[in-house]
């Protein structure tokens, strides 16, 4: 276990510069906007006094490193700036984000659970029945779902279950189970395809390994050979990509929340972009980037816990 602790500490230390890098990139986004940075930060038809005030507040007249310093210190205090669009009252971005964060996390969490609880068993079945009907149909299924962009799958579900069948509500959190089903299924099924394929190829590789034949030669029950030994080995490469999957889910959440009007950070981001509300855009992206990095970190640690060979890395 000691080596695991050492690994965790190493990874934590490595994550810090990455987070800092992310803040730098997000900071620089302001300068990518067309025109004077101040116009991205101010409401349309702002007066000269308002523009000057904003310049002052954001320190746009200061040299870049000072600006960044101010930006960073504001971040550390949890200040993500003020929205220029929502409502008539200036709402701090951070409160907009915190309101919606839990919704997005819920969506992602359940989506991940669905994806893995579908993908792993399907992958195992496909591997154990290689080239038979079960395998081929699972492969076709993954091919088709993998090719569907999330927004299209979402729209399809919307059309099918809301518009034509009227079973499920189309928008928002009108309550409980009904409204969350479609979004999480969209996310879950979209990612399940990749999990299935990885699981299948990993499993196929593992069952050809020497140690599997060895285990059989020791008289182990076939179900122990497959579900205790082969499975644990085969699932490792699949787990390595949990980090990347988390990244995908965050991106996918933006799209799915937009399709289903699910009140999470993704929808906030989309609306902010269309409203040219730059502070909100910046805030959302920063928060998302942060979660991507943390997600990858957690996945790495989890992986090291499961596979002891990695702890040396």
């Amino acid at each position, binding site marked *: 276990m000691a080596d695991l602790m050492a690994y965790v500490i190493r990874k934590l230390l490595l994550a810090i510069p990455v987070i800092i890098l992310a803040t730098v990139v997000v900071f620089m986004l302001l300068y990518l906007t067309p025109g004077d940075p101040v116009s991205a930060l101010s409401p349309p038809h702002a007066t000269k006094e308002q523009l000057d005030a904003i310049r002052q507040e954001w320190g746009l007249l200061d040299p870049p490193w000072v600006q960044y310093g101010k930006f960073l210190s504001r971040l550390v205090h949890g200040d993500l700036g003020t929205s220029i669009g929502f409502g008539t009252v200036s709402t701090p971005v951070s409160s907009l984000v915190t309101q919606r964060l839990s919704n997005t996390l819920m969506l992602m969490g359940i989506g991940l659970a669905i994806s893995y609880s579908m993908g792993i068993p399907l992958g195992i079945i496909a591997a154990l029945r290689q080239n038979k009907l079960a395998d081929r149909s699972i492969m076709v299924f993954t091919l088709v779902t993998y090719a569907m962009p999330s927004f299209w799958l979402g729209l399809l579900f919307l059309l099918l279950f809301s518009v034509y069948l009227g079973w499920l509500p189309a928008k928002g959190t009108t309550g409980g189970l009904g409204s969350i089903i479609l979004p999480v299924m969209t996310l879950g099924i979209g990612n399940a395809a990749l999990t299935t394929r990885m699981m299948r190829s990993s499993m196929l590789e593992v069952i050809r390994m020497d*140690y599997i034949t060895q285990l059989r030669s020791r008289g182990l029950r076939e179900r122990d050979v497959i579900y205790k030994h082969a499975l644990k080995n085969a699932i490792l490469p699949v787990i390595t990509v949990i980090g990347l999957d988390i990244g995908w889910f965050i991106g996918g959440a933006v799209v799915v929340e937009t399709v289903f009007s699910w009140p999470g950070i993704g929808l906030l981001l989309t609306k902010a972009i269309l409203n040219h509300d730059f502070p909100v855009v910046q805030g959302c992206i920063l928060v998302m980037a942060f979660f991507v990095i943390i997600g990858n970190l957690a996945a790495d640690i989890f992986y090291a816990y499961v596979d002891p060979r990695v702890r040396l890395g």
Partner: protein
Amino acid sequence: MTTERKPILEIRGLRTQFFLREGVVTALDGIDLTLYEKESVGIVGETGCGKSMTAFSILRLVPHPGRITAGSIKFKGIELTALTLEEMRTIRGRSISMIFQDPSTSLDPVFSIGNQLGEIITLHQNVYDKATLTTKVLEILRLVRIAAPESVIKQYPHELSGGMKQRVMIALALSCSPSLLIADEPTTALDVTIQAQILRLLKDVVSKVGSSMMLITHNLGVVAETCDRVCIMYAGRIVEEAETFELFGKPMHPYTRGLLTAFPKLGEQKEELSVIRGTVPNLMNRFPGCSFVDRCDSATDQCSRVRPKMAEVAPGHLVACHLYPSGGEKDNA
């Protein structure tokens, strides 16, 4: 020197074939072999001659698309080829065990040594109590001369050296005191310096447990150290069989002779290493007659038409070669 010992393993006419898209490969073409209690027999031959496949056939582990297509394998009187896979499973690991060639790929990398050993002991000896299990695991690790077994049981395969891993393999194989241990090239993947250690260990432990051993190797030196009897295999057939000293002293079959002369002897001055000319025959299209015919300097016309049968040319010494009149029967391959 004939002691009335009971035969543990009797293989008669074993044929194992692989059904590929391109054709049928006959990996084992009519093997006859007998192993007695508490003896060590070496199976020697070059790569691809079928030695490992003999082991896999005994344990019914022949990989797809292969199958045992003919012959009988009797273990203590039980016909193994007639057993269901479930019945076979009860024999594996308990009555017949096998050690594979490469210890680094033969151990499950994500389970600790203690866990893997414990699994087998629980399975075959129905030991569920954790304390008893640990005791037994430590016991067997000491048997294979692993120092500090208490820390080894917590370790994972990748943390051990090649020699240690092979000791663990031996421990796994002998943990349930099998009557027959099959060792497939147990030292090939190890450093030369470790090889001798492991061989000696193998010999000691096997005799301590009272098992018979079938040692498969391509290295005649290994056989000389550890085996009572030797079988020489070529292209899926056994061509010579004798007690070790007898074989080394009076090799009969041209292939055996070739093998022995290929090794330069200590103190001998040689300009060139002698080789056996030619290459191993294609196992897919078998021609009638002796399989060694293309590479044999003493081949006659009869050799390419008629397959020689194993015949006793001296007490306990059998050869399958037309040089030693045996009345070979028409090959029906």
